[in-house]
């Protein structure tokens, strides 16, 4: 692609972001703002999961843990320090940091494991955090925690929180874009192809993996923090729901792991499909259709939608 077309692509993206940012202030029904909020949240989650899962090929099934940790950090900070609404929004930064710190601590031993073992150990990690939080009384325990909402009409609250989530989403996509073009991303791809060879090529695999894991935990932590403020009530069954973890993995793989656009497309389409299905049919039936979707994707497009269509159109390899 020439420089010119890059610039047009950039302008296009910028216009899209501005349109999204303006949207909640045009007085649309609250439902649409909430829907967009959810979409942005899943795009953030899938994009950041993609750093470790898509580029490096380490499938983490425990990313919901970081999401929940972010949510609880904000709730505790708000309770403990009596934060103002603006302070609570900003507390998403320390929330992300806490998630990152925990990712480093957990990632150090766990990232030595490969393939299914890594998947299982992260799954276990999510369960351990979930059960641990549920059983500690100062974290609200089985009753959950309440957060004080802002003294504003609901449209304004949703609008503000949507802007916050949009910012996080844009940042996470920017990071993903940078990764895809940097030496860092190339190193991660090399690890996915063959870790031993990568290591002999002077790629410091353990360090890169930890960095990727920590970065991929940071944004879910922030997203969790905003989500907690959005719900104003958090409970382990909500913010540590295993389904979120699995959805993240699916969205990224559905769109195409290891690409910038893949997780975005996957998250947007799956969230909309889910929303559409659960409005029109019974929840159980909707989930069954969802299950079928998994099977269909893995059988017919094992490399995700993007690569599938690129192959179909003969646009060359990615």
């Amino acid at each position, binding site marked *: 692609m020439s420089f010119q077309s890059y610039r047009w692509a950039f302008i296009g993206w910028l216009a899209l972001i501005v349109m999204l940012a303006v949207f909640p202030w045009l007085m649309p029904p609250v439902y649409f703002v909430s829907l967009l909020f959810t979409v942005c949240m899943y795009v953030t989650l899938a994009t950041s999961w993609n750093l470790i899962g898509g580029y490096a090929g380490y*499938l983490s099934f425990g990313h919901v843990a970081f999401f929940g940790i972010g949510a609880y950090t904000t709730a505790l900070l708000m309770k403990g320090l009596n934060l103002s609404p603006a302070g609570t929004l900003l507390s998403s930064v320390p929330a992300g940091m806490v998630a990152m710190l925990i990712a480093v601590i957990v990632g150090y*031993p*766990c990232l*030595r*494991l490969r*393939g*299914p*073992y890594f*998947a*299982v*150990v992260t*799954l*276990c*990690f999510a*369960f*351990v955090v979930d*059960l*641990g939080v*549920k*059983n500690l009384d100062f974290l609200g325990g089985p009753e959950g925690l309440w957060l004080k909402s802002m003294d504003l009409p609901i449209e304004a609250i949703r609008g503000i929180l949507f802007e916050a989530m949009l910012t996080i989403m844009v940042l996470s996509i920017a990071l993903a874009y940078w990764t895809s073009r940097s030496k860092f991303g190339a190193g991660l791809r090399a690890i996915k192809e063959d870790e031993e060879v990568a290591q002999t090529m002077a790629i410091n695999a353990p360090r890169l993996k930890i960095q990727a894991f920590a970065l991929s935990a940071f944004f879910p932590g922030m997203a969790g923090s905003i989500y907690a403020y959005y719900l104003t009530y958090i409970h382990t069954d909500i913010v540590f729901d*295993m389904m979120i973890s*699995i959805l993240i*993995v*699916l969205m990224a*793989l559905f769109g195409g792991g290891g690409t910038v656009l893949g997780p975005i497309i996957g998250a947007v389409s799956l969230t909309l499909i889910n929303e559409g299905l659960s409005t029109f049919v*019974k929840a*159980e*039936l909707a*989930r*069954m259709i*969802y*299950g*079928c*979707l*998994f*099977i269909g*994707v*893995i*059988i017919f497009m*094992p490399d995700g939608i993007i690569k599938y269509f690129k192959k179909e159109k003969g646009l060359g390899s990615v």
Partner: protein
Amino acid sequence: MMGAVYALLGVGFSLSWGVMKVINISHAAFALFAAFLAYTLLQAWGLDPILSISVSVPLLFVAACFIYRILIIRITKAKEVIVSSMILTFGIAIILENLMLLIWSPDPRVLTTSYTSKVIIMGPFYFQYPRLAGFLMAVIGVGVIQFFLKKTYIGKAVRAAWQQPDAAQLYGVNLKRISMITFGLAVASAGAGGVSMAFLYSFEPHTHNLWLIYLFLVVIVGGVGNVLGAALAGLIIGIITGLSLAFLPYQWVNLLTFGLLMIILIFRPQGLFPSEV
């Protein structure tokens, strides 16, 4: 006591992981399906849960063979079979779970038979009948699978395919057929395991997530593909959870179990009893 039941549940899981490199996330969901089937048969016709196995095991075997033929065979050529199989079978697990929710509603169920409250007393020990039934079923089940693998022609072919798939094929082992049978058997054994679990615990359509963790625990501690290792691991885990129940409140026991699994994974991913086939 519970250990043997975990082992029966885990054996099939271990088998399909070891032989076919397929991690069957829906394994526990199939087990739960058999448990619900036993429950319905008991409610409707008063059929003993032990006898219900004669219905559920063949049913699951056939269903699994179909699933293998239609779905799993397509991903066996993928670059990362294990990962693809996890996602694929996860889809199956979701479908099964919601099917069970539709049919049986989310209420917890218990298998209540005429002998539920009966107890045998043997010296200082006393055994509850249903636990004993679950235990015996599990022991017999694991025994049958071990016998099948070591003594029958198909079982030997399965082990051959496991050690050297290409060489086994050269010696006239039909790899596709063997894989299909292995998968069928694995899922069928899950059916038996599910019914024996149902003797011990109450269950509802979401329970299979918890059972799945026990599966991973048993299989990873025992070593992937090691039938006797899984049995031993099941016993050890049964003892640990049993003992920790005496000291810890109930909700901490699961935390301990998951923590244990994490620690074992980090320090000994090959399991405590590495597979010798």
